[in-house]
């Protein structure tokens, strides 16, 4: 008898501990997703332009799931300590709903991380950079300009992107004067190329030879894996806690 009383207390203790961990992970998930949604690396306009911003939808879901997990973990702790069937039933059902949402968020983030390829950005850059008519391509142009300035890079895979393909940029800027955009040149303090002829020819030291894909895919990868794998870990832990809670709930009799 004492043994089963101990068993009950051990089970209660484990469930309380499990819910505490869920609560803390929920807060961490919310914080992480808020950080990603705030767009620290400035790549959101590019993703939006490719209609591939479901990674941001997954992060938004993550924010609310994290808060829900925190609230539900408090409910769970109260329910376990008071051994209330009603509270625990509410807890289990709401946790299942939250589980489903977080599952959707993880799978979305992982799937859309896969569809981010260099060719996606290459095509978008060639078709929309410096395109004059539609208004929303100003966003794409500004984002690319800032990206190339801050990361000292050119194009997606390199400046030869502008040579291998025709582009909207090529329509307004002649090949002889602008083999690639001026932002690909090494600029001085006033924003003018240090050596324009050297830049046009591609002399090392006067132009940026590496592509911007690493600067884009690095943050996107971190973002997607942060949402997907951390959410996956939380869900595995939540699964165990929920099973334990259901076992405990089925043992409570009025």
């Amino acid at each position, binding site marked *: 008898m004492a043994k089963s009383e101990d068993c009950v207390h051990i089970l209660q203790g484990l469930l309380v501990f499990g819910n505490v961990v869920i609560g803390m992970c929920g807060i961490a998930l919310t914080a992480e997703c808020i950080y990603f949604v705030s767009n620290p690396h400035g790549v959101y306009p590019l993703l939006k332009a490719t209609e591939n911003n479901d990674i941001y939808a997954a992060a938004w879901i993550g924010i609310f799931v994290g808060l829900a997990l925190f609230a539900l973990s408090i409910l769970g702790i109260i329910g376990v300590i008071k051994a209330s069937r009603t509270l625990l039933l509410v807890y289990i059902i709401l946790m299942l709903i939250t589980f489903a949402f977080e599952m959707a968020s993880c*799978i979305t983030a992982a799937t859309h991380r896969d569809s981010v390829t260099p060719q996606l950005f290459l095509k978008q850059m060639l078709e929309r950079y410096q395109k004059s008519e539609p208004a929303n391509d100003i966003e794409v142009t500004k984002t690319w300009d800032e990206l190339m300035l801050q990361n000292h890079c050119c194009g997606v895979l390199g400046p030869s992107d502008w040579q291998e393909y025709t582009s909207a940029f090529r329509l307004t800027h002649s090949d002889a004067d602008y083999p690639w955009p001026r932002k690909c040149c090494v600029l001085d303090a006033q924003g003018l190329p240090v050596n324009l002829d050297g830049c046009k020819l591609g002399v090392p030291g006067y132009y940026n030879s590496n592509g911007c894909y690493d600067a884009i895919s690095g943050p996107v990868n971190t973002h997607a894996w942060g949402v997907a*794998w951390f959410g996956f870990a939380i869900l595995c832990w939540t699964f165990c806690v929920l099973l334990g809670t259901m076992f405990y709930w089925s043992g409570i009799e*009025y």
Partner: protein
Amino acid sequence: LPYVPHVHPMALPGKVTATTFALERPRCVFDRHADASDAVWLAVAFANASATFRNPRSRADVPPYKQLLTTRSYMTLETAAAAYSCSAPTPPVLRVGGDTACRDQGRQDPCNGPLPSPGPYRVKFLLMGCRGPKAETLWSDPILLRTALSPSTIDPAPSRRGSDVVVIASILASLGAVLATAVLGALGAKVWGSLCHQDLGTDAFTRRSYRTHHIPPALPHSLPPSCGCSPPGLCRSAPQPPAPCQRI
């Protein structure tokens, strides 16, 4: 002159573009034949028209840039012979086709305008004096310019689905299914048990519930005559002796 003009050997990405190309500047080639007043021209012709090219007799006969498409050759880059001497500290690259201003304004001077088609082209240097051509180099190999592709040929789809997605999706789906089954099973078992008043719980559960709630069992005479559904726990525990409860 035995010199062959060639595209600059250094690996520069802008060496050959769609409308320009960069030659290596010849050094010390014309020193023996050039006077101070001579000029070195670059003759550019389509590769299949280089055999029919005739050196102009004087400076007035020099074919201009505008005639490239009709006569299929022109001469440009008139520079003093001193610029090609051994001691001249000039940049080692000659860019052909880099001057877009003279193409637009249509000046008559030698115009180093962009080349209109990918070619292939052949070039040679021509040393012109006051009385006509004095020396020439050999024709270069054919130089083919770049042809750009359309971006619609780019396929943005990923080549293969990553294994991570499959792992996450399959494990999460199975966890969700197990949870849903467990909840439905537990709920169904409880509903079935409360409807059919059978002894479903084990002794351990029953005893545990007593301890958790600290509810003493009801005395047998206060029980309802039939095992109704309120409360099912007490109903089930009626036939057992109250011994465990006294230990509370």
